[in-house]
């Protein structure tokens, strides 16, 4: 299994040609992202929005670090949370070592977090990177479970179930900033997000980064080119550990508490989910995944108890139908734009995807209504869905939801051939030929 272990998408799909590897080194996206990060807090001004953005940024760093393994190195890890967690716990101990911390400006703390994560990755990587594939995945699972279990037993370092907490404001003021306010923390995290993302991107352009791709695709051939697949994996692994540790440090700064939750398999599973949802084939995939998932988790969970169910459905559907993830979906459209034919897609998309979205919403309405009927209190027949309040025990809403869903899917089905045709048209090179 090991040699074939790789993310393959259909090689005939044009999106394939636009892999991270062949993208030109352009500054524009970086400047745009930097600018967006700069002005976001001016658009979303309140603290909860900033908290959510902080969470997003931390997840982005972590997901990018994870994709150094999964997307670029072809290594599937089921226990990556421990590197972020240990980085964070290490930082928390630094925060609590007040003599040292009072001489350290807070923005430098993530460097230490990275080093903690890297040190752990060196230890584990020394034996786990011998092979990719199932053996690697299983070792990562085992080590992850072990360290998570230890976190409850070894109270001296992990603080048991309560975890350990500290106060970021005891650090050396950084140009007069004490990081009392969420917004100050936001800029710290945003700064580190830019730095880490840039470094991780540059890593993928270095000789070792290129060879990580080579080893992912064909470890044997790489060996016959003078590279030890094991060492290439090892280097990817420890750098991934470093940036995971940075993410952990940012977590420590933002939340000022670390617990067992930062280490357990559920967190490791989430980061896998985030990364895959975004798309492992592209550098920016995990970024999209992290944004989408954080919104799903924080905003959708305010709306429905069933958010995890929807997340699960979305994830399985992604794996089954869009293995390139959201990024893959976006990049599929690049050729059409290049050919200047993206306009052709607009109407067919509207005609097909809009009903599809409505159908899915209708379906979720049915799910929510079923859930309400089953689990709501007696006498509480009223439920609010899509800003309409109705009686979930009467027939009418059910019929409406059923009809809307059925009609929407019927329209989707009817219009699909048109969309497929438009798709082919838009992806044909102008002037005939392929």
């Amino acid at each position: 299994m090991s040699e074939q272990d790789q993310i393959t998408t259909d090689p005939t799909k044009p999106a394939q040609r636009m892999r991270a590897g062949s993208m030109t080194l352009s500054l524009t996206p970086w400047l745009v992202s930097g600018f967006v990060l700069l002005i976001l807090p001016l658009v979303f001004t309140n603290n909860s929005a900033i908290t959510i953005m902080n969470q997003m940024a931390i997840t982005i760093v972590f997901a990018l670090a994870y994709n150094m393994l999964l997307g670029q190195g072809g290594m599937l890890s089921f226990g990556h949370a421990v590197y972020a967690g240990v980085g964070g716990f290490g930082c928390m101990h630094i925060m609590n070592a007040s003599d040292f911390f009072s001489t350290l400006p807070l923005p430098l703390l993530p460097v230490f977090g990275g080093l903690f994560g890297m040190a752990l990755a060196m230890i584990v990587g020394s034996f786990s990177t011998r092979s990719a594939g199932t053996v690697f995945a299983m070792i990562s699972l085992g080590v992850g479970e072990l360290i998570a279990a230890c976190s409850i037993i070894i109270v001296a370092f992990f603080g048991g179930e309560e975890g350990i907490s500290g106060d970021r404001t005891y650090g050396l003021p950084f140009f007069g900033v004490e990081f009392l306010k969420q917004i100050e923390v936001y800029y710290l995290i945003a700064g580190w997000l830019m730095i880490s993302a840039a470094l991780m991107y540059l890593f993928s352009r270095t000789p070792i980064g290129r060879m990580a791709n080579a080893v992912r695709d064909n470890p044997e051939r790489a060996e016959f080119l003078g590279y030890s697949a094991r060492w290439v994996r090892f280097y990817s692994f420890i750098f991934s550990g470093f940036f995971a540790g940075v993410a952990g440090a940012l977590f420590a700064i933002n939340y000022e508490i670390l617990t067992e939750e930062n280490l357990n398999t559920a967190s490791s599973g989430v980061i896998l989910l985030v990364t895959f949802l975004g798309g492992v084939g592209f550098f920016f995939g995990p970024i999209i995944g992290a944004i989408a998932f954080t919104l799903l988790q924080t905003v959708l969970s305010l709306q429905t108890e069933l958010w995890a169910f929807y997340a699960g459905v979305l994830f399985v559907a992604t794996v089954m139908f869009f293995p390139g993830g959201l990024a893959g979906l976006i990049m599929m459209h690049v050729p059409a734009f290049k050919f200047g034919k993206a306009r052709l897609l607009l109407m067919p998309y509207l005609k097909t995807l809009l009903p599809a979205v409505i159908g899915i919403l209708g379906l979720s309405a049915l799910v929510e209504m079923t859930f309400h009927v089953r689990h709501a209190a007696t006498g509480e027949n009223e439920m609010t869905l899509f800003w309409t309040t109705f009686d979930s025990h009467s027939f009418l809403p059910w019929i409406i939801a059923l009809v809307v869903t059925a009609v929407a899917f019927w329209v989707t089905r009817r219009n699909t051939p048109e969309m497929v045709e438009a798709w082919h048209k838009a992806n044909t090179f102008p002037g005939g030929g392929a």
Partner: protein
Amino acid sequence: MNAITDTTPALAIEDLRKSFGKAEIIRGVNLRIGKGERHAVIGPNGAGKSTLFNLITGRFPPTSGKVSLHGKNLAGMAPFQINRMGLSRSFQITNIFPKMTVFENVRCSLLWSKGYRYSFWNLVSKSRDLTESADAILDQINLLNRRDLPAGVLSYAEQRALEIGITIAGGADLIMLDEPTAGMSHSETDYIVDLIRKVTEDKTLIMVEHDMGVVFGLADYISVLVYGEIIATGRPEEVRANPKVQEAYLGAALEAEH
């Protein structure tokens, strides 16, 4: 010392044996290949040619015997270590990086020999030396016009050419090619033969090949491997004349060709 180094063969194989379970596939092979030789290993199907290649390049460990490269024993070395000593090989079944571009395939194979090793402080795109060398090799193997396509979408002959390009890119002085023309049409074969001749100038070449036209056109020396043993080694005309060879293999093959 000098006198000795001069006569040290590029590759020396002494009583090499390999068994898979009870079956002994390589049964005591001895071979010396001098510097600058173009040496072809021929033999009927199942003779153990690919296994011999795999033993030399460290893909499998031998059961017994010794392989030395420029006088250095290769025992216990991994493929990447052997490669670093100046031995590079191609594969019978195309073995490239299908998802990377053609250019990147070649560039990856240049990295180690250009001294980049496990560097994480250089950017590959910033190195003009790397880009120029890779382009030069692409030019050599006539794939410059395919430079930015994923290797997986190339035609079969182009992939074989790329395979050779990857093999020679690292500048190894001993090149081993495993059936470089397998499955090709006549015109494609001619193209590859020219290519091999061009890129192995001043190098030692060992190749496994079935196409006798290619073998006799390229090789300075030929060894015949039958059932895990070398039954003859020599100049093409000597081998052609060897009755044992004719009996075991060549006669039939030559007849079939005419």
